[in-house]
């Protein structure tokens, strides 16, 4: 029995190692690249022989990257706040109130979430040029609403549906004012869902590439994913591999931190509602 248990454990151990390697190796590889100096870039080592911060110093020396990083953070944060605020209102109504049209709302947001973004690029390109918001923060925040708002509504309504709303009534019976009942009972229950949704929405906005390269033309609103694609080396003949790798690591760090801290919640958010038939 013990032997069987051991081989069983060994088999799972091997499987787990394979899974972890599969998931993390490409990330590790680009991180390793970012710490290599240009001379050893092509040595093919998985662990840099001489660690250097040169690539990082390089990208932060130019305004191009720092500006893009500020744009990325600002645009993604504002889009997240708007989407989560509007989404919370709508999701609360869907979960709590009885009114005709709420199924349509959920269905509609799901359909929009599956929208091909390229289909919006050509009309938005022209609309934004005409009204003068092309290449501005607003010009990116607006298209980000197309996927972030439906995502927020959909995820939040799944979360809100699980909140035991009767507790609010119980609190009121016990003498709480409506404001107290909301603040002390419902808000703490709803907060994790809202927070999780905010993380998911932020990751989506942070990830966007198509809108970012289509609806910007200068540094004034270009986000990091788009800026990376337009990086040039410090000289015309140098491939910007090291800079791209360093920039890639910098924009990956926030995601990794979110994933490490909120792994369980993110999984719950991604799968909520999607599979319960």
């Amino acid at each position, binding site marked *: 029995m013990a032997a069987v248990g051991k081989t069983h454990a060994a088999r799972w151990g091997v499987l787990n190692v394979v*899974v972890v390697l599969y998931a993390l190796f490409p990330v590790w590889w680009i991180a390793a690249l970012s710490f290599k100096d240009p001379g050893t870039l092509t040595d093919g080592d998985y662990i840099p022989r001489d660690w250097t911060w040169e690539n990082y110093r390089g990208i932060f020396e130019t305004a191009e990257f720092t500006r893009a990083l500020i744009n990325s953070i600002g645009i993604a944060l504002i889009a997240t706040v708007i989407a989560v605020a509007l989404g919370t209102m709508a999701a609360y109504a869907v979960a709590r109130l009885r009114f005709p049209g709420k199924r349509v709302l959920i269905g509609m947001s799901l359909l929009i979430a599956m929208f091909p973004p390229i289909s919006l690029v050509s*009309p938005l390109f022209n609309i934004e040029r005409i009204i003068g918001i092309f290449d501005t923060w607003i010009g990116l925040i607006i298209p980000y609403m197309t996927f972030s708002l439906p995502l927020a509504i959909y995820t939040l309504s799944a979360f809100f549906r699980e909140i035991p709303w009767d507790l609010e009534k119980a609190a009121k019976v016990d003498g709480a004012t409506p404001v107290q009942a909301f603040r002390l009972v419902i808000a703490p229950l709803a907060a994790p869902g809202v927070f999780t949704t905010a993380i998911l929405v932020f990751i989506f906005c942070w990830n966007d590439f198509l809108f970012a390269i289509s609806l910007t033309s200068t540094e004034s609103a270009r986000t990091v994913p788009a800026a990376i694609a337009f990086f040039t080396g410090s000289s015309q003949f140098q491939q910007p591999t090291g800079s791209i790798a360093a920039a890639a690591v910098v924009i990956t760090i926030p995601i990794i931190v979110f*994933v490490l801290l909120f792994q369980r919640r993110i999984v719950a958010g991604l799968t909520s509602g999607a599979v319960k038939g």
Partner: protein
Amino acid sequence: MSTRAQPAGTPPPPEAETEQRGPDRAALSAGARQERRLGWLLCAPAVVVMIAVTAYPIGYAVYLSLQRYDLRFPGRAEFVGLSNYGAVLSSPFWWDAFWVTLFITAVSVAIELVLGMGLALVMHRTIFWRGVIRTSVLVPYGIVTVVAAFSWQYAWTPDLGYLAELLPSGEAPLTEQWPALWLIILAEVWKTTPFMALLLLAGLALVPEETLKAAMVDGATAWQRFTKIMLPLMKPAILVALLFRTLDAFRIFDNIYVLTAGAQGTGSLSILGYDNLFTALNLGIGSAISVLIFICVGIIAFTFVKLFGAAAPGAEVKR
């Protein structure tokens, strides 16, 4: 909220979905009307924004697609009816991109389903490092697609990458059509299998453990338990995962843009639309392509709904 805090492996209580409580039925009609108004009021901002950012641009795209509209000659814009559509649909560029997109979608989604199922089973059953496994699996999903694409591009760049070294020297797979297509699929699969796996994992959580035990006692093999019990019970989850991933894969852009920029016949429909707009600056043709892609996605969604019915998006709100 309590069901969320548990590991996803534990099934949610069955009443979680069905017990959707409305107000007391005895409520006065005035109260009901007030509630209705509040509901609409709360949803209104979201609806207005969704219409403004999606419906209006799509309508505008349809309008643009009926124009001859070249940004280099903006003065010569004129209404040309459906001729842009004729031009696109009779062009080999459209059909090449169409088949490439279809190929990438079909192959990557098929691979992801198999791999994702394996990954989900590992996540579901593993005894050690459960947290580590789930966290690692989320990383590819969360990571910026462009970053992942660069990682794969460098991996296959001769002299630089670890994978290029495995090839005979002088090979540059990203410069040939078929190898490049497979590498694009590889990058896509790596990035999105975790999403598939997570949806399937949530489906696995709905398979009752006792049923599996009973089948085991009755002498069913692991494979029989998988195909006869787990798969049928997971069908809704599988269909939703397939639908999500198919629609998502069909609009592939980032990976191709970074890996080949659509060269060597690897351009997807999204790449074609982008090129027509930003390289050729042809707004009319670009918009026609946009509308056609939108229609393709609509057809895919409709086919899924018709063929598989229950698992369609929005079905979960039915009760």
